[in-house]
C-alpha cells in the first residue's frame, strides 16, 4: 500500500513538473534548435524585432486575459482595435487634433465598446461569446461606415472633395517606430503594460477580486463582491487594451488601415491559451499571456528559417493552439477528478 502511494505521488510530481516547466523547456529547445540552424536567429537585433512584432498582439491578448480572469471572453477585441485604428488616424488626418486628444479619444471608444459588451452580458444575460461576437460585427460595421470603406492616410483625397488637411505627426509616429534606450518604443509600451497587468492581477486587491469573480462567482457574492460591477470593469479594460493596440498599430504603420484587427484576434486568443500553462498556473495570467505571444512570435520567426511553405503557417498556429488547449484541459480534468 505505502509503496503504491509513494509511486503514485512520484508520478504525480512528474506530470506536475512537466506541466509547470514543460512549456518553458519546450521554448528553450526551440530557441536552441533555431540558433543552431541560423546565426542570424540568436541576435539582439532579431530578438528586439520579435518583441516588437508581438507587441500589438500582446496588448490585445492582455485585454482578453482580463475578461477570461472574470470567467468571460471577449471576441470583439479585433474589431475594437480596427475601430480605434481608424479613429486615431482620422483625428490626425481629417481633424488635425492635438496629440493628447488623438490618444484619449480612442480610449473612450474602447470604453464604450466595453460598456456595450458588458451591458449585453451582465444586464441582458447573453452568453459572453455570443454577445461579443455580435459586438464584433457591429463594431466592424461602424468602423467601415465611419471611413466609408477607405483607409486613412496623409493628405488623402476626401469624398467631399479636396484633400485631408492633416498629417501624422513625428511625435505620434515615434510611438510606433521610435527607439528608446536601445529598445523599440512599442516594446517598452508592451513591457510596461504587461508588468502593470501582472501587478494588478497578482499583487493588488483588485486582482484578487477579479480572480475571485471568475473562480467562483457565488463565493465572491457571499464575500460581498459586486460581481456585476467587476465584470463591467473587466470588459471595459479589455476594450481599453484593444484601443491601445489600435493606437500602436496606427503609429507603427503610419496609416489607418481598414480591418487591421481582424486577423489578430485568433493570434491573441492563442497567446492567452498558450499562456495558461506557463509555470503550471493553469489560469489566465498576464505573464503567461506575454509568454504565449512570445512563443508564437519566436516560432513563426524561426520557422521561416526552416523553409516551411508560408501557407502551412496557419496549420502550425492551429496546432500550437490545440496543444496548449489540450494541456490546459487535460490538466483541468485531472484536477477535477482529484477534487
Amino acid at each position: 500500500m505505502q509503496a503504491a502511494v509513494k509511486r503514485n505521488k512520484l508520478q504525480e510530481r512528474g506530470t506536475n513538473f512537466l506541466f509547470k516547466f514543460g512549456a518553458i523547456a519546450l521554448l528553450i529547445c526551440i530557441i536552441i534548435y533555431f540558433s543552431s540552424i541560423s546565426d542570424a536567429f540568436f541576435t539582439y537585433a532579431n530578438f528586439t524585432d520579435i518583441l516588437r512584432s508581438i507587441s500589438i498582439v500582446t496588448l490585445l491578448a492582455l485585454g482578453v486575459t482580463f475578461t477570461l480572469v472574470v470567467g468571460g471572453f471577449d471576441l470583439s477585441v479585433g474589431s475594437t482595435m480596427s475601430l480605434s485604428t481608424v479613429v486615431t488616424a482620422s483625428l490626425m488626418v481629417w481633424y488635425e487634433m492635438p496629440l493628447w486628444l488623438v490618444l484619449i479619444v480612442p480610449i473612450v471608444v474602447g470604453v464604450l465598446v466595453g460598456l456595450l459588451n458588458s451591458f449585453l452580458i451582465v444586464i441582458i444575460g447573453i452568453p459572453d461569446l455570443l454577445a461579443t461576437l455580435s459586438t464584433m460585427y457591429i463594431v466592424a460595421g461602424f468602423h467601415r461606415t465611419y471611413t466609408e470603406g477607405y483607409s486613412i492616410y496623409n493628405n488623402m483625397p476626401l469624398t467631399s472633395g479636396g484633400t485631408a488637411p492633416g498629417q501624422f505627426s513625428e511625435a505620434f509616429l515615434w510611438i510606433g517606430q521610435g527607439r528608446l534606450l536601445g529598445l523599440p518604443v512599442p516594446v517598452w509600451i508592451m513591457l510596461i503594460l504587461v508588468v502593470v497587468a501582472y501587478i494588478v492581477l497578482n499583487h493588488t486587491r483588485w486582482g484578487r477580486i477579479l480572480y475571485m469573480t471568475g473562480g467562483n462567482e457565488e463565493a465572491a457574492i457571499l464575500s460581498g463582491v459586486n460581481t456585476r460591477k467587476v465584470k463591467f470593469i473587466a470588459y471595459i479594460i479589455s476594450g481599453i487594451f484593444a484601443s491601445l493596440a489600435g493606437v500602436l498599430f496606427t503609429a507603427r504603420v503610419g496609416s489607418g488601415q481598414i480591418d487591421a484587427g481582424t486577423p489578430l484576434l485568433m493570434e491573441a486568443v492563442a497567446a492567452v491559451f498558450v499562456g495558461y500553462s506557463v509555470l503550471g498556473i493553469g489560469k489566465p495570467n498576464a505573464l503567461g499571456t506575454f509568454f504565449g505571444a512570445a512563443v508564437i512570435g519566436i516560432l513563426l520567426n524561426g520557422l521561416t528559417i526552416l523553409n516551411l511553405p508560408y501557407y502551412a503557417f496557419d496549420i502550425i498556429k492551429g496546432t500550437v493552439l490545440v496543444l496548449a488547449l489540450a494541456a490546459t484541459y487535460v490538466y483541468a480534468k485531472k484536477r477535477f477528478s482529484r477534487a
Partner: protein
Amino acid sequence: MLNPFLSMKAIDKSFGNVNALKNAEFELKKGEVHALLGVNGAGKSTLMKVLSGVYEQDVGEILLEGERIRIRSPKVAKDFGIYCVYQEVDTAIVAELSVAENILLDKIVAGSNMFISKKKLNREARNALKQLQVVNISVEIPAFMLSLAEKQLVLIARALVSSAKVIIFDEPTAPLSLNESTKLFSVIKKLKATGVGCIFISHRLPEVFEICDRMTVMAEGTLVGTYNTSETNQEEIVEAMLGTSYSKDFPARKHVLGNTLLRVKNISRGEKVRDISFQVSEGEIVGIVGLVGAGKTELAKTLFGYSPYTEGSMEILGNTLKIKHPKDAIKAGLVLIPEERRKEGLFVQESLRTNASFPNLQNFSRLLFMDKKKEKSFAKEIIERLQIKTSSTETPLVYLSGGNQQKVAIGKWTSLDSSLYLFDEPTKGVDIGAKTDIYRMIREFAEKGKGCLYFSSEIHEVLGISDRILVMYDGHIVKELSRKEATQERILLYASGGKEE
C-alpha cells in the same frame, strides 16, 4: 441568566407554495455551543440562511444584543459578525486561489489598501490555522488541492480571522472522519472559550451531546423545543425530532419473496464505495441507509454503470454482467431514479410527454419516426396512474411542483418493464402528499415482483418501507438488519460509526 446575545423571533419563510419556516424561533447566548436539530427538511438550513443573509425572512424579527437588525445580504451578516460554514463548502471556496487567499477572502474584499503582500497574507493565514491547531496545510497551495475536510477548516479559519461573534456550522462533520471531527470539536471548544457563539447542525446525536450546551429541535419549519444538554437524553430528543406520525405512512405489507434478482459481490470504486456485497430478491424492498455523505449516491451510480466499479462483480438473475454505461444497466433490467432529479433525472425544459417516452424511444417510434399519439397516450396513462397534477401532457416540467416532477422521474421508467429499481432519496424535497404517493408506487413495484433498492438518509422512511435494511457508513455496509431487528436508535448508531457492545 443573561439576555440572549442573538434571538430570532416568529420567522416565516416560504418558497413558492413550500412553507420552509413557520413561526420559527431560535436564540443563542454568548460563548455557548448550541445545536440545531431536526429531520431532513425540517428547515434548519433555511433558518440559518436567513440568519446569514442568504435569504430574508418574510415575517419575523432578528435581535442582536437586544437590538433589531435587518440582514439583507451575506455581507451585512458578516458586518454583524455572523459567519456561516455552509453545508456545501464549494460554494464558498475559490478553487484557483491559494489557501491563504481563501482564508482571508472577506478581508481582501473589504480591505482598503491597494497592494497585497503575499508574505503578510501567508503569515496571517498561518496564524489562523495555528489557532485551529492545523499545521499540515500549506497556505500557498491552491485550494483545489484540499480535501473536503481541509476546505471546511479553511472556512472556519476565515470566520476566525474576521473576529466573528457567531459561527454557524451546517453539518460540518458529515464529510469528516472521526479523527477530523475530534479536531474540529477542540476548535469549537476554543472558540467557545473566547466568547464566540457557535450554532451546530448535525444528525449525529452522540457528538451533539458531546460538545453542545443546549439544543433546539425543529420540525416542519417550527420550533419544537429547546433543551439543556445536561437535562435531557437522546431518547427525548429523537422523539422530539420525529414526532409521532411517521408510522401512519407505512401500512403493513404482505410480501412474498421470489428468486434472487441481484447479487453484488465485493464491489469497490475509489474511496466512496468499498467492498460492498448484498443481494436483492424479487418482490423485496431493501433500504440502504446512511448519513449524508456515507456514499449511498455513489453506490447507486456505481451499480447503474454511471461510474462503473473497478473491482468485484454483479449478477442479475444468475447472469454475471459487466456494466460499463447506464445503457448496459438499462438493458439488463436495472433502472435508477437519481437523487438530483432536475440535474440528472429530467429534462425540465421539455414536456411531460417527451420526458416520459425518452428511456424507451424504440417503443414509441415506428421505423425511425416518433409516434406522437402513442407517446401522448402513455403520458396520459402515467398522469392518471400516478395522479400527477399538470395542465396537459405538453406542459414543460419546469412548471410542475417538485413532487409531481419526481413522479414523472419514476413513471418514465414504467414503459420498460425493468426488474430492478434503484431509488436515490426519492422523497427529497417532496411534500407529504406526494411522498405518500411515491411510497405507494414503490410498494406496487414490489408487489409485482420487482426488486427495489431504497437509498435514503431519512431513517424513519427506510424503517417504514423496507423489508430489510443495510446501514452504510463511510463507503462500507456496516450492518444488515431485518425489519424486525431495526429500530431508529440502532440504525443511527451504526450509521454514525458506532457499534453495539
